[in-house]
């Protein structure tokens, strides 16, 4: 592998990322699966980086899951997206910060459609006006939340308490980066580093002291694939895809996986449980799995936030082996503590996957 070859390619895929005053739009599913991720992003942006970030309470889904499942037509999606833009316009913001990779893809696709087919924009404006009496300006800048953390990665590194280094050996942690399909595969120039060798997470890993693992199935889908998982009969495809990725990365013995998509950490994390139950295979050390974290959770760990405040107890794969490697202190008794430190019960443990 010639890293200089990748670096040459990355130069061709740089994008403008606004440096302040963001209008934040959330993911539909992340708050359910890994609620600490978006919370950590807002916390880091406001309190560690000193940025202005606004979240409008009445913003909605972008319709991404429904759109990619053929449940809503493109015209509906465009009108809903137009409403998000109208809320942004009304609150005086022009830089859209998108939590979800699929939403980022939807916003990019709608803006590209309007650019190439202006009549669709006109029709959308008309439909939005009829439905809501709202008008909108198109955003000056659209960035995925991982773009923004990438932009400020060195500022985070400067405040790092626990870099991505194995405290015992002093060596960089070996990190797999997994990019959501809708981040750059549709519009390579809208992603940092392009579609084939995205740099957005690699930049964070390098800046925070880790070593990037490249492996043959790096580009492969996590297994979600919308139609694969949302249609129950197709779920076998989901886990066979997930297994393909883990079989491919296993020889490299990664310490962790970082993702930038709502679905990917879910399927790479819960998928390890499913594969362990179905096949009796585990991919981490000593019967554990390979911890799968979102980029915000990793940034939070690097900055010294408490792992349980980051919501890492919501992960199926135990994160404790990773915390031990990074030298991060944690209180096992507080893993399942609710408000006020009250124990709220622990989940049933799986038989094969050690947790």
């Amino acid at each position: 592998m010639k890293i200089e070859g990748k670096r040459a390619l990355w130069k061709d895929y740089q994008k403008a990322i606004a440096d302040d005053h963001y209008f934040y739009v959330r993911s539909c599913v992340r708050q359910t699966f890994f609620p600490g991720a978006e919370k950590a992003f807002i916390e880091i942006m406001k309190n560690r980086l000193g940025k202005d970030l606004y979240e409008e309470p009445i913003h909605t889904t972008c319709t991404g899951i429904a759109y990619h499942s053929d449940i809503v037509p493109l015209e509906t999606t465009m009108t809903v997206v137009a409403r998000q833009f109208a809320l942004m316009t009304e609150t005086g913001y022009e830089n859209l910060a998108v939590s979800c990779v699929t939403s980022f893809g939807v916003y990019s696709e709608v803006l590209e459609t309007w650019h190439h087919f202006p009549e669709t924009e006109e029709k959308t404006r008309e439909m939005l006006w009829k439905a809501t009496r709202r008008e909108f300006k198109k955003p000056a800048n659209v960035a995925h939340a991982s773009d923004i953390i990438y932009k400020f990665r060195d500022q985070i590194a400067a405040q790092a308490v626990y870099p991505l280094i194995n405290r015992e050996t002093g060596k960089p942690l070996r990190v797999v980066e997994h990019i959501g399909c809708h981040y750059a595969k549709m519009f390579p120039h809208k992603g940092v580093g392009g579609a084939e060798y995205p740099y957005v997470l690699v930049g964070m890993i390098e800046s925070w002291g880790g070593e990037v693992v490249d492996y043959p199935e790096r580009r492969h889908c996590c297994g979600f694939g919308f139609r694969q998982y949302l249609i129950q009969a197709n779920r076998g495809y989901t886990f066979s895809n997930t297994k393909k990725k883990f079989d491919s990365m296993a020889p490299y013995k990664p310490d962790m996986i970082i993702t930038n998509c709502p679905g990917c950490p879910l399927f790479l994390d819960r998928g390890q449980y499913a594969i362990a139950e179905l096949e009796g295979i585990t991919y981490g050390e000593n019967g554990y799995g390979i911890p799968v974290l979102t980029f915000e959770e990793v940034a939070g760990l690097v900055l010294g936030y408490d792992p349980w405040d980051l919501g890492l107890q919501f992960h199926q794969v135990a994160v404790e082996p990773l915390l031990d490697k990074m030298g991060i202190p944690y209180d096992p008794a507080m893993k399942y503590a609710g408000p006020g430190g009250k124990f709220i019960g622990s989940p049933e443990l799986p038989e094969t996957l050690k947790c």
Partner: protein
Amino acid sequence: MQVRAESSSEALNCRKHLNADILLMHTRKHIVVIGGGVAGMESAIHLCDMGYEVTLVEKQDQLGGHVLKWDFLFPDHRPAYEITNELCPSVEEKANIKLQTEVKNIVKQNGHFEVALSDGEILTADALLVATGFDLFDAHKKEEYGYGIYDNVITAAELEERFQNKIPIRTAAGKKPARVGFVHCVGSRDEKVGNEYCSKVCCVTAVKQAMRVKESLPGCEVFCFYMDLRMFGRYFEDLYREAQEKWGVQFIRGRLSEAAEDIDHRIIVKVEDTLAGRPLRMAVDLLVLLTGFVPSEGTKRMAAMLNLPLGNDRFIKPSDEHLRRNLTPVPGVFVTGASSGPRSISESISDARAAALEIAAWFNHQTQHAVK
């Protein structure tokens, strides 16, 4: 044979032709040929043989162009140097050669071209022949194949260089490859990279090289991944059959979707085998990319400088694809070889001769017009 009596008009025509020939001989026309590859050299030789003064301008330090980098040629495996060994001395003897020289500017005035060269000299030409040819597609642009990133992904030109320099075929780590894959149509017939045309010679080049790999490494498995096999030339089909029957080269119909490197630095390729109707994933030790033709930088520069029209493939568009393939809409400017589209060496040679005749016909027509 009965000799027919000349009518007065025929006699007049005859005298005009005679006058034209005399005029031609006494005012020796000067042609600047831009590009010293096979087409440029062959045209220059024929123009010199017809009595014209020719200056051949070549930006490199030697004549020959792409052929210099090839070891042997399809379909008969003859050494490539035989071509340059025949053309170079002949053109050097007959034409004025300007090496390491580029055309910086061209101005047309009073029916002549003032050609400013990079060495400061200004040539006055009666006609120009653009023979600036092609470049190979930059394989880096086909990002998913990992050229320049994965250690064991090379181009066909690089493999040919190894053949030429007698360098054993080895992986980047110096091991004998057990499996070699050839990928056809890299940068050709590919909307994604903006090249929708066929580069013509890549298919047969892959077959030729695959056979040489099998010959050098008998135990090595060799696979060609293709969309169509375009064996358009004489004996090409024979070569394709020989590759399968004698050498055991395996042809898989399917375009590669991606290549990746595994922990042992082998290249994992993903391809849909469209004959078997199933996806295929396999590891090869060396992956060879058959990069296609793109207009050379020189061709693009000449086209812009001379305001020559381009086809949708961005090669120079001749005045008529059937009848005037060497003529351009700019009077006195001609085109030959791969400047006007992908061509094999033998096609370039034929085209170069046609260009020489086209130029001569144009001069004759001009002279006749002047006599009238």
